[in-house]
């Protein structure tokens, strides 16, 4: 035993990685349709002229909505089951293509970031995982620049920090953990009725070992709140984030066992 000074040996544990998605709850998205009506001849000419000019102006917007609707539909399908790398890469690519064509829209970037943070789990080593998280971060930065800070983006920010940490949990626990917490806190402050906030809190607690203050018992009340909020939540628009109800239900069932 050597002469003593500040003897404080210390410890840090591996966080068990999580993210198992299961089971179904398909969401159907209504598709937009418009039908020209059949007026009298004069009205027809005027309407045709208007229709052609307006079609030109909103043609781009329709294209955006159509493409996003399809992509978000496929996103919901993928999000409700066990993640498949090829599927998520294809989704990430689709959203990124839309994002590149529409520099003023934050939603395609939102979904692309989500896709890349999911793809990080498939990385074979720390460097590959980090490369995916780098991509997610870059897209998220663009989204923030367009939309500013809102509850969904802050939640996504927390998710990206989590992916960063899980690439090398033992070492990054100390640095990424507090950043994850801070973003989650802000997401709740900006959107206290956002059900995904409670889903993320609850699932994080569910997978945190009991010795660290987590576990099923602690997670259950939070997951119950998530399920409640999902039941009453109305998204701001058809393309806005609306995922996670299935996950929350499943996880609550697991936590109640």
């Amino acid at each position: 035993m050597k002469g003593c000074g500040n003897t404080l040996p210390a410890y840090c544990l591996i966080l068990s990685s999580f993210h198992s998605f299961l089971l179904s709850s398909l969401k159907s998205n209504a598709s937009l349709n418009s039908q020209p009506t059949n007026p009298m001849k004069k009205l027809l000419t005027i309407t045709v002229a208007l229709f052609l000019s307006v079609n030109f102006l909103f043609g781009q917007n329709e294209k955006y909505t159509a493409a996003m609707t399809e992509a978000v539909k496929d996103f919901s399908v993928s999000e409700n089951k066990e993640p498949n790398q090829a599927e998520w890469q294809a989704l990430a690519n689709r959203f990124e293509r839309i994002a590149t064509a529409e520099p003023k829209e934050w939603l395609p970037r939102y979904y692309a970031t989500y896709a890349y943070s999911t793809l990080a789990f498939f990385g074979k080593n720390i460097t590959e995982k980090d490369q995916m998280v780098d991509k997610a971060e870059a897209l998220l930065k663009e989204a923030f620049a367009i939309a500013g800070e809102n509850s969904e983006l802050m939640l996504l920010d927390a998710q990206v920090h989590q992916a960063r940490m899980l690439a090398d949990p033992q070492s990054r626990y100390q640095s990424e953990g507090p950043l994850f917490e801070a973003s989650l806190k802000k997401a709740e402050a900006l959107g206290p009725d956002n059900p995904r906030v409670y889903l993320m809190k609850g699932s994080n607690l569910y997978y945190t070992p009991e010795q660290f203050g987590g576990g099923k018992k602690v997670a259950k009340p939070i997951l119950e709140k998530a399920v409640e909020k999902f039941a009453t939540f109305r998204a701001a628009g058809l393309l806005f984030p609306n995922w996670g109800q299935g996950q929350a239900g499943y996880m609550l069932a697991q936590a109640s066992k």
Partner: protein
Amino acid sequence: MKNILVLILLLGSAPLSAQTLLSGQVADRKGNALPGANVLLKGTYDGATSDTLGRFSFVTFGKDSASLQVSYVGYESFERRFVLRGKPQTFTVRLEESASELNTVVITAGSFEASDEKRMTMLKPLDIVTTAGGGADITAVMQLLPGAQRVGEQSGLFVRGGSGQESKVVIDGMIVQNPFFSAVPDVQQRGRFNPFMFKGTAFSTGGYSAQYGQALSSILSLSTSDYASNNGLGVSLNLANAGLNYDLADEKQSLSVVGYYGNLKPLFALVKQNVEWTREPEFTGSSLTYRLKTSKTGLLKAYGMYSNSRLGMITQAPLDDETRTGIKLSNCNAFTTSTYTDSFAEGKWRLLSGFSYSYNRDETTFDGSNFGGSDERIQGRAVITRVFEKNNTLLFGTEVHRINLKTAFNDQGYALHDNYAAVFAETEIYLSRKLAGRVGLRSEYSSRLNRFNLAPRLSFAYKTGEHSQVSLAAGRFYQNPDYRYLYKNPDLNFERADHLILNYQRIKDKRTFRIEGFYKNYAQLVREFTGQPGSLPRFDANPYRFPWGQTNNGGNGYAQGFDVFWRDQQTIKNFDYWITYSYVDTKRLFEQFQQAATPTFVSNHNASLITKKWFEKITTSANFTYSYTSGRPYYNPNRGDGPNDNFLADRTPPVHNLSFSASKIMTIKNNFTILYLTVDNLLNTRNVFTYRYTPDGQTRYAVGPQSYRSFFVGMQIMLSKKATVISSDL
């Protein structure tokens, strides 16, 4: 009407231009298919994802000039302009890999890094804390790494045949004047710093960068962490001390405060001591760490620590009451360091600036005679780095120190001051992804010596394969002679060492192999002549003597050898082990030596085996360390010390040590708790570090460890109620 309707339908829904089929294949430079690549036509929604064979095809309604863009994570983006002619077109796309840690070479010769941030490192900071036998003391664990030697009864880092003076500890770039607790005879002191303060540890065993100097053998570079956790109050309790720590953090700033009181009396009552204590060590201390994010890129860190301690012991040669001496030591130490780092022009320029002040006072008496002293060091440092593309860098820096030393020897007082300054420049160039070079130049000035020096440094690394590389380092290193010599002789020159180091390493799938060979040439070492007129000089083996003889820089020496490191974290689940072996052959002519000989702190063979296993179900980690140190030379007065006698020819027996440590994580009443236990020298081996002789030269006695088999237990509790992500920071 019908016709108009048809026209409307045609105009409204049909595109005005024809559709074109675009297809092709995406592959890397060697032709291997890249599935999942994103292929798109710039400015449109048209595109596709490449399939498992790298093939893609999609239809576009665009016209005229277009740009095909292909991107794939980990590779450089591809863009090609072309013209849409209405006919189908195929493309063969070849993507270039982006530079990453996996495919880019890293300069590693002479350096062993434990870092969270860099990938090609051998250890993580966590490894330091969990190594058995280390006692969570950084330098104790560094002694288990290749290149380091274990000298059981002395404090400091002994590297590749160099003495403890030849290694410096540096925190955030600045030299630490008193990294260890104050020395008392034959009791090895531990480092003053808590390993969890640091995000990275770089242990250089030679050939280090031009940014550092004043160490002939090695630099232990510690980097403090940039973040603090928001943990609230923590309590630490063990057989040696009781402490409190409080952490507070928000987005912009953080504050950590630590306070502790220690008394080794209870521990020494339980663990039999080989030292006769008149007053068991008692100590108190406190520290404060403050971090502030001044901007998106700027970070200010300030650390301050104050501690004091008291102890009393008796030393004597066995069976010789005449040599019985009572030693009393009362120490106080204050240390503060602050750094400011920032980057400008989007990372093109980086600034690191630091300031540090330390004051250490030892009130030491040997039988009432004053043998104490004080050290004071003030230093400032600034480094500016220009970052070019492809990670090439050029840096310039300077450091200025003022050192005030006072010492007393048998009531005689000495004092000296030194103004030390250095400037350095270094560039790191990646000639290709596979070949990197670092060239630097350092110049130093010491006012006490009133001399300048110029030291070039050079290192290269070449990536021989996907997982392996070869690295070389060479350079000249200067150091002020031991200040004890400078009290009497201000005309001395810098001591010098030239290094040449070559290493090969391979890291694949969590298995690491590394072999490194070195040659060091020493020059201008201080020699002391203790001959009196009319009689031959007699070697005085007392390691605590005050050098009173004539001195000059006429000494020289060499050190050569190699070390091997193997680590495997993969083969057995949750089991991590590493093996190191170091060989050194060294002789030098220095100090009182009248002929070149292997110094007494050198052991030719050092080997260690470290194992760690994590038991998931009981959240417990159990670690073993076995270390072997071959015999060291010791002075035998019966042999004589002239050039033809067998000076320092005797060797002590080898030293074996098997130690064990375990830690368990649990919650007590919702409070996160860690319990730990260590047993050192499990086999109760009666180790001998060196031999001394009684003044009459007749009886030899052994100098060994402070205690043989010893144990230590403790716990750390977090009183914070935070339920979400918790980081344990002790």
